[in-house]
């Protein structure tokens, strides 16, 4: 395996042999304007900007004069659709052209003082910045801000007028819960940070923004809670993000794949969520969240394997029930990985494992089946996977049709035609259902590995199955996510953190944060919070 990977590595140089000082040149031609600054002359500036934004039909240029004073010419530039039109109209154009003369009648404003005056008394916009760099100007225009140029000044005023049509906050589709917040992250970064801030009203919640993607210039934010988070982790996240030099970031998956520690592993080592309450809980345990503009999926690191078997609801329901459900989920994970392989091993090699009546029943069903059990299971598994994929890709109104056909074909026709045994259908269906009980991104890893184990099991029975599991176990033990062992707190064992793996301790008994994640600030809450009736409560 190693020998096959080596040439691949040479062809796709990854971490380590990356040329450190790779040029920062954009992959686009004509980038010479990037270092230029504005000139005092309005016409020159406009000409230059128009040249850069040539054939960008969505950019709007509005030239007008300040306070009906022909001396002071202004130009406003914004992108139609990205900037809020009413805001631009009311608070910039109208305010500067009409309202200022009414507010300060008769006052003559010289050309030199115009910029200062506009900033102090003219604009009704709250969020303004100024810049003299052409690069920033272009960036501002294209990200929805409107830029005001004043004749005679080589400084532009950037007005925060971002306001585009976006999807409303809706229910999380990928992580539904019975109890808990119904809000989901959306595609707009600002809305997402607001959703986080609404849950954590603390000055310690820090949100830092970067721009990534040489062409897309996507806003990427990292959020963490100062005082809880491990400072080294923040530094590591930042350095891994800054390493990214790609032309586009269209989804957080791009970032995930570029900051992972184990790019060859089938298991994800960066978790993602679309639920703000879950993201907030992650932050409160000392993790770092990475929010990417344009996607509702927020990344959280470091990631432990057990997270995939947990649900945000686990902390909202009573802990006894949660523990029971978690046991169910852990067993389901095991089933989704091994059940078909176990079935193959038992039916083809280890008949003694089954009670006699069950064995006879299965043998009876399989009498007419023309294939060996491995082929039978493999075909059924592939059919199931096909149906599942079709169910996702099909236009929604057609989804119904697929499930009907699937149920009929798999459930009835195949068995009646004698192509597969009914027991095989039960095994495959149960495996499929079991794989839906835990997080999707881990279940796809299990789906892949299930086939590998099936092969081993068909060749070597139980020994093959166990060898496969051992190999997966060894692989999982060797994984790390941002320095934290993937299987912790189980191995290496941190006793106190076992409170939240299978067993979920009651909230009043969770005194500490995960030890390997929140290294510096372990203490979550005081002890002795257990609610008690007034008679037995200690006095004072």
């Amino acid at each position, binding site marked *: 395996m190693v020998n096959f990977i080596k040439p691949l590595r040479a062809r796709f140089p990854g971490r380590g042999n990356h040329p450190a000082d790779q040029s920062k040149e954009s992959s686009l031609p004509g980038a010479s304007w990037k270092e230029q600054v504005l000139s005092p002359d309005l016409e020159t500036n406009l000409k230059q900007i128009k040249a850069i934004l040539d054939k960008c039909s969505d950019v709007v240029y509005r030239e007008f004069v300040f306070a009906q004073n022909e001396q002071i010419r202004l130009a406003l530039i914004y992108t139609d659709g990205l900037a809020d039109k009413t805001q631009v109209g009311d608070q910039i154009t109208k305010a500067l052209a009409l309202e200022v003369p009414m507010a300060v009648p008769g006052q003559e404003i010289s050309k030199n003082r115009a910029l200062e005056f506009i900033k102090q008394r003219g604009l009704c916009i709250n969020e303004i910045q100024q810049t003299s760099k052409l690069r920033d100007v272009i960036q501002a225009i294209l990200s929805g801000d409107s830029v005001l140029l004043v004749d005679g000044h080589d400084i532009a005023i950037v007005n925060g007028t971002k306001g585009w049509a976006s999807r409303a906050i809706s229910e999380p589709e990928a992580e539904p819960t019975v109890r808990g917040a119904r809000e989901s992250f959306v595609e707009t970064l600002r809305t997402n940070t607001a959703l986080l801030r609404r849950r954590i009203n603390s000055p310690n919640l820090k949100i830092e923004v970067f721009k990534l993607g040489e062409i897309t210039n996507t806003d990427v934010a990292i959020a963490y809670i100062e005082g809880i988070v491990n400072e080294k982790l923040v530094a590591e996240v930042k350095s891994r993000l800054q390493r990214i030099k790609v032309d586009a970031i269209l989804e957080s998956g791009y970032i995930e794949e570029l900051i992972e520690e184990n790019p060859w592993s089938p298991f994800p080592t960066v978790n993602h969520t679309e639920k703000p309450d879950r993201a907030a809980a992650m932050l409160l345990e000392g993790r770092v969240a990475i929010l990417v503009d344009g996607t509702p999926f927020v990344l959280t690191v470091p990631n432990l394997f057990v997270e995939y078997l947990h649900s945000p609801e686990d902390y909202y329901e009573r802990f006894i029930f949660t523990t029971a459900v978690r046991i169910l989920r852990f067993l389901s994970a095991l089933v989704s990985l091994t059940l078909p392989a176990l079935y193959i091993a038992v039916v083809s090699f280890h008949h003694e494992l089954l009670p006699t009546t069950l064995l006879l029943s299965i043998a009876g069903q399989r009498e007419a089946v023309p294939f060996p059990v491995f082929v039978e299971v493999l075909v059924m598994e592939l059919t199931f996977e096909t149906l599942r994929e079709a169910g996702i890709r099909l236009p929604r109104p057609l989804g119904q049709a697929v499930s009907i056909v699937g149920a009929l074909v798999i459930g009835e026709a195949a068995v009646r035609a004698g192509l597969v045994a009914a027991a095989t259908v039960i095994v495959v269906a149960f495996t499929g259902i079991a794989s839906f009980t835990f997080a999707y991104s881990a279940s796809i890893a299990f789906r892949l590995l299930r086939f590998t184990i099936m092969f081993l099991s068909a060749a070597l029975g139980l020994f093959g199955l166990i060898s496969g599991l051992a190999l997966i176990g060894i692989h999982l033990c*060797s994984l790390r996510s941002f320095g934290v062992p993937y299987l912790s707190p189980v191995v290496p064992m941190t006793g106190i953190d076992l409170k939240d793996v299978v067993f979920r301790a009651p909230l009043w008994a969770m005194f500490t944060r995960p030890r390997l994640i929140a290294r510096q600030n372990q203490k979550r809450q005081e002890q002795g919070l257990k609610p008690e009736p007034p008679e037995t409560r200690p006095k004072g």
Partner: protein
Amino acid sequence: MLEQGKIDSRQAILLIISLVLPTAILTVPAITVKHAAQDAWISIIVATMAGLLIARLVTDLSLRFPGKTLFEYAEEILGRVPGKVVGFLYIWWFLHANALIMDEYASFLCSAHMPDTPVIVFFILGIAVAACAVRNGLEVLSRFNQLFLPLFLGLLLVVFILATKDMKVTRLLPVFDKGAIAILKGAATPASWLGEIVIFTMIIPFLNKPKEAYRVAALATLFTSFYLLVSILVAIMIFGPNVTGHWIFPTYNAVRVVSIANFLERMESIAVAVWMFGGFAKVGVFYYAAVLGSAQWLGLKDYRPLVAPVGVILVALAALCENIVELLDFLATAWPPYALSVFEVGMPLVLLIVALARGKGGEGT
């Protein structure tokens, strides 16, 4: 340093249990019961004493040379050439022991579950899995072990409790029937298994708290002995000494008899499945010791290139053994004097004495 990882004391305890128990629980009961009949449990207690002494010996020796493995301080103590000779002998012993472990492992699986599969398949796949763990280093090996060994230990305990239904305490009588000589003879084999703790010398340098090495070694030995003791008691109390002595794998048979309410039965398959993980771990530890030792012996900077060649040698060595009768005979008669007197007690003792005489190494903490 060849190995960057560090393991904690709990992982070390579990690793040493894995180092001894998985095959000990298979073959040791029959051999011990053959010698000492119903007094076999006394043999185990005697062997435990010996095991604790050996544990003390190797820990004492290792702690005089903090951060160094057997291969490094053997040269420091004896000088370059004699040190190399000792190192070479230990590499041989690790390989030989590992080949025997593979033989036990494969012949057990063959006779218990898969009689039609050629043993070489078990050798190759078993070594391949272990190689995967060894390549990833001590840390991953001990984590893997920590993940699965508790399952094995827990399941074994549950099965033993379920088997109490069929036990009769009177089968342990009369006590001390065969006399002290028989008991001591019976103790030789378990002692030679417990003495495999000599591999701990390869692990001590990588403990994150080397000061706890004594505790680790003692606890691990006691744990292992406890399981050996219980499995022997269970086997004798269910089948009596005569039947137990004639079986090859009495513990496996003890698990087989468990049958409760026509539902909780055929536990042996689950037990074997979980036991296989222990087998991988045991092979892995010996494999790791051999590979790390060879790398140090050859003065390499990295032990990973040696993983594959050593694996091939292991498969070839394991394939030398003809059948299970020959294997058990070797384990019962030749193994205790060979392993116990030379590698587990003899050489460490010589090393310690010479170290003391020549004033090598620190005082030991």
